[in-house]
């Protein structure tokens, strides 16, 4: 959704509508296009604004393309020839371009010979609302809705009438509602007190913005009515913010769970303290990056593919660690801690030297960016929603593996009584490898998910290792459910505390809480009871 603050001169708008009408029978003249673009290429932004209007009224069918490219900063001009081109790919030193007039391929041009036609946020706003107006006439309902939503708060006098017509011909109720609100906001700005009645109860942030500014109106009646309406809205919002905090908490929790669940297996079930766990997460994240490098332009597909890939890579790395280090330290968990710490140092520096010390870009596919609108006031960010779901799925799968599969059975057998299990023909070593691979693989999955939330860089792992241990210990070592509950609850606690304690303090409080909790229940939330548990 786009919010506009550009105030379009009325003249221009009339021309715009005129232009829309004319567009059909507009005549193509070669000179005209060049001239239009010439006028765009001027140092002053006002001149540019006029040029944009000119382009729209020209009714030239390339204008839509031009405006889009201008918006994307891809409409550029060759310094020497003065030729206007559209840049297709603007990374690297030489850029592939097409001619802006003929729209035919114009080969490659050196970055340094090209002059971009810069725009600023004001122009960007102007362009967007212009395009929005155009979009109101498209056939796709969703586009029209978005367009209508964009117009909220950016309607001014000359637009009223044409919008009225639009509403009249609009068959989609939602679009009509939005446009009505847009007009109401406009009327409110004009000081029309009745508009408030129409806006009352809407949770839309731009409506609230309008009402807020209305409270500062010099007409006391309007001011009071506005604040009354606002108070009513705030009431509605309170529930929202409660839900929002809960969602924040859960999503943070899901991240913790993802990061910790692998550890819950290697550490909890096998009793192996793997300080390189964080780096396994990192590997998963880098796999996602690599995938996106392999499949340029298809971030979504790459992401999906990197789920198995990430698992595999991390699992293999895990096996390597298990074989090369951990197996020699069987039954010496504290030594394992130290050795794997060494491994983590090596892995980090490896990434730094082999790939780069800089963070890597991981693109979010469209279906993961933006947010899911529950109501006008509450929307859930998609990427976190996906991660939350992903975490639960991973957890469920793990439960299945541990509970239902042969591997799970063998793992439990081996961890409870190695010798016995051996004598029953279970190949303990193999089980160790498998278990460790599983745990590491899950860490890889966490990495894939995290790549959608945070940096993909050499330090990624370090930022999560401690939290992971906290979660596992808090939940009770060796208990997957514990890890889930612990992760989610810690997440929620943190987010509930944050607003009044601040991010740092909230984290500290949570840590202290964990410490004290461990004093009360030395074996975590869900300890294993009975004589076995006696040290």
């Amino acid at each position: 959704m786009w919010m506009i603050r550009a105030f379009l001169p009325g003249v221009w708008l009339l021309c715009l509508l005129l232009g829309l009408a004319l567009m059909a029978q507009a005549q193509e003249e070669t000179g005209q296009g060049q001239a239009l673009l010439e006028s765009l290429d001027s140092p002053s932004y006002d001149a540019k604004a006029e040029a944009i209007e000119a382009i729209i009224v020209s009714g030239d069918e390339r204008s839509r393309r031009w405006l889009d490219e201008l918006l994307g900063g891809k409409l550029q001009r060759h310094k020497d020839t003065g030729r206007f081109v559209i840049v297709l790919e603007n990374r690297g030193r030489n850029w592939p371009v097409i001619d802006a007039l003929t729209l035919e391929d114009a080969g490659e041009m050196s970055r340094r010979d090209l002059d971009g036609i810069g725009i600023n946020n004001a122009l960007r706003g102007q362009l967007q609302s212009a395009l929005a107006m155009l979009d109101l006439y498209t056939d796709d309902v969703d586009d029209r809705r978005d367009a209508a939503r964009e117009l909220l708060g950016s309607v001014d006098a000359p637009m009223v009438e044409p919008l009225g017509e639009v509403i009249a011909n609009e068959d989609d109720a939602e679009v009509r509602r939005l446009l009505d609100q847009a007009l109401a906001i406009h009327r409110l700005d004009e000081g029309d007190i009745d508009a408030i009645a129409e806006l009352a109860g809407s949770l839309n942030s731009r409506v609230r913005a309008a009402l807020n500014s209305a409270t500062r109106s010099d007409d006391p009646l309007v001011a009071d009515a506005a604040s009354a309406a606002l108070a009513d809205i705030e009431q509605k919002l309170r529930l929202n913010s409660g839900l929002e905090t809960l969602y924040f908490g859960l999503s943070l929790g899901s991240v913790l769970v993802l990061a910790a669940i692998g550890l819950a297996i290697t550490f909890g079930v096998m009793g192996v303290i793997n300080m390189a766990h964080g780096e396994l997460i990192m590997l998963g994240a880098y796999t996602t990056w690599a995938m996106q490098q392999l499949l340029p332009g298809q971030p979504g597909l790459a992401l999906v593919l990197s789920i198995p890939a990430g698992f595999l890579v991390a699992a293999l790395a895990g096996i390597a660690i298990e074989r090369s280090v951990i197996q020699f330290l069987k039954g010496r968990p504290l030594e394992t801690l130290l050795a794997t710490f060494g491994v983590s140092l090596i892995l980090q520096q490896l990434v730094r030297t082999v790939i780069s010390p800089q963070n890597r870009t991981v693109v979010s596919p469209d279906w993961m960016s933006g947010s899911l609108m529950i109501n006008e006031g509450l929307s859930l960010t998609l990427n976190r929603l996906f991660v939350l779901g992903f975490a639960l799925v991973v957890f469920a799968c793990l439960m299945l593996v541990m509970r239902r599969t042969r591997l799970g059975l063998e793992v439990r057998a081996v961890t409870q009584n190695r010798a016995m299990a051996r004598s029953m023909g279970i190949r303990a070593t193999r089980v160790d490898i498998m278990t460790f691979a599983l745990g590491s693989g899950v860490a890889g999955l966490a990495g894939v998910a995290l790549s959608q939330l945070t940096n993909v860089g050499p330090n990624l792992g370090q930022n999560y290792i401690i939290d992971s241990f906290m979660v596992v210990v808090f939940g009770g070592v060796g208990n997957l459910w514990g890890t889930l509950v612990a992760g989610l609850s810690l997440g929620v606690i943190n987010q509930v505390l944050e607003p009044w304690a601040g991010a740092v303090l909230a984290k500290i409080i949570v840590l202290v809480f964990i410490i004290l909790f461990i004093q009360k229940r030395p074996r975590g939330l869900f300890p294993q009871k009975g004589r076995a548990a006696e040290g």
Partner: protein
Amino acid sequence: MIPSNVYRTPRWLAVSLLSAAVATPVLAQEDPIKVGILHSLSGTMAISETVLKDTVEMLIEQQNAEGGLLGRQLEAVVVDPASDWPLFAEKARELLAQEEVDVIFGNWTSVSRKSVLPVVEELNGLLFYPVQYEGEESSENVFYTGAAPNQQAIPAVNYLMNNVGVERWVLAGTDYVYPRTTNKILDAYLKSHGVADEDIMISYTPFGHSDWQNIVSDIKEFGSQGKKTAVVSTINGDANVPFYRELGNQGINAADIPVVAFSVGEEELTGIDTAPLVGHLAAWNYFMSVDTDENYDFIDAWIEYTGDDMAVTNDPMEAHYIGFNMWTEAVKKAGTTDVDAVKDAIIGVTVPNLTGGYAAMMPNHHITKPVLIGEIQDNGQFSIVWETPSTVAGDAWSDYLEGSRDLISDWRKPMECGNYNVVEGSCGGSEAEVE
């Protein structure tokens, strides 16, 4: 390792000629001039600092290609302080006392500079510090080639106030001294321009903060009060990716609530999917997209040096470029690498910067810089939307802070004082007793 290549183009020559009297290419029989490089190559700061190390190495290579300095070759002495602050002090001591380098280019974080400062002063070394910082410091032995607050923060805020019409301000930063000081200065500055208290929201977050949900939604709420709102971000490197992602996903975009960042440059953007960020702002003294020949030459040199076609340049790199040239200039001027001689010689030295102007070393060991405001583009570059008509001289002591308002710094004889109090007319504090 990076392919080292002797490289030179007519343009490049032109630049060096601007700065250099014709460098007489003498074979260096004398032992080389040692240039210390003190940038973290591991640990958390490696992300930002490694490129700076490479930059200096490249500059040294180019200098040597032109016959070195005073007929002697330059030799880089690289150490890794590993993002560990005490280690910075130790390594600085190693460079100065053991390796006996003639100059040090290094440091990124304020704390690392603070940790090195006493060492450099004690052993009377030269340190060129290339990163924008909080000011409130002026050392006889340190040259600040990065921006002081008045060369970045204030102009950026001016731009938002006057050109964008912002009325409400969110000052978001990582909880350390640079954001704290900057925000303090801005807070004072905004209030002095009639911004009400309730129209300013300040929030601090820990290093590497990755969960921005709450804060971003607060910002959103803060912005929905019917006044144009902007975020002034002094958020430190690593925390930016999740921050911008959250912004994008919660639907806050530039046309709506613009974010102007002081520590997000091209280097940081390489780690971010910039599509949702288009239009957000950054204030620097240099952008890779600057359209000058010097810049294109520098970029090409850099690309060839790193052998990476996608390699980017950024503001601190330019700062090193300027600092290095200033130092070579001063050495030529003084005819020696002796620290005291160079210290005197360098004040007033003027070299071209990459943005088509010149940078001069001020008596307070800060330099003149243009201030550019750029909007993020989808290709991880900035399109420059505004710049100061002329260059701005760096202020060691902010005019907007209690206590430092009356302080000035002037290292020329006879004053030679880093914090001269114009009211009391005395030179207070540390540098007083450093002879």
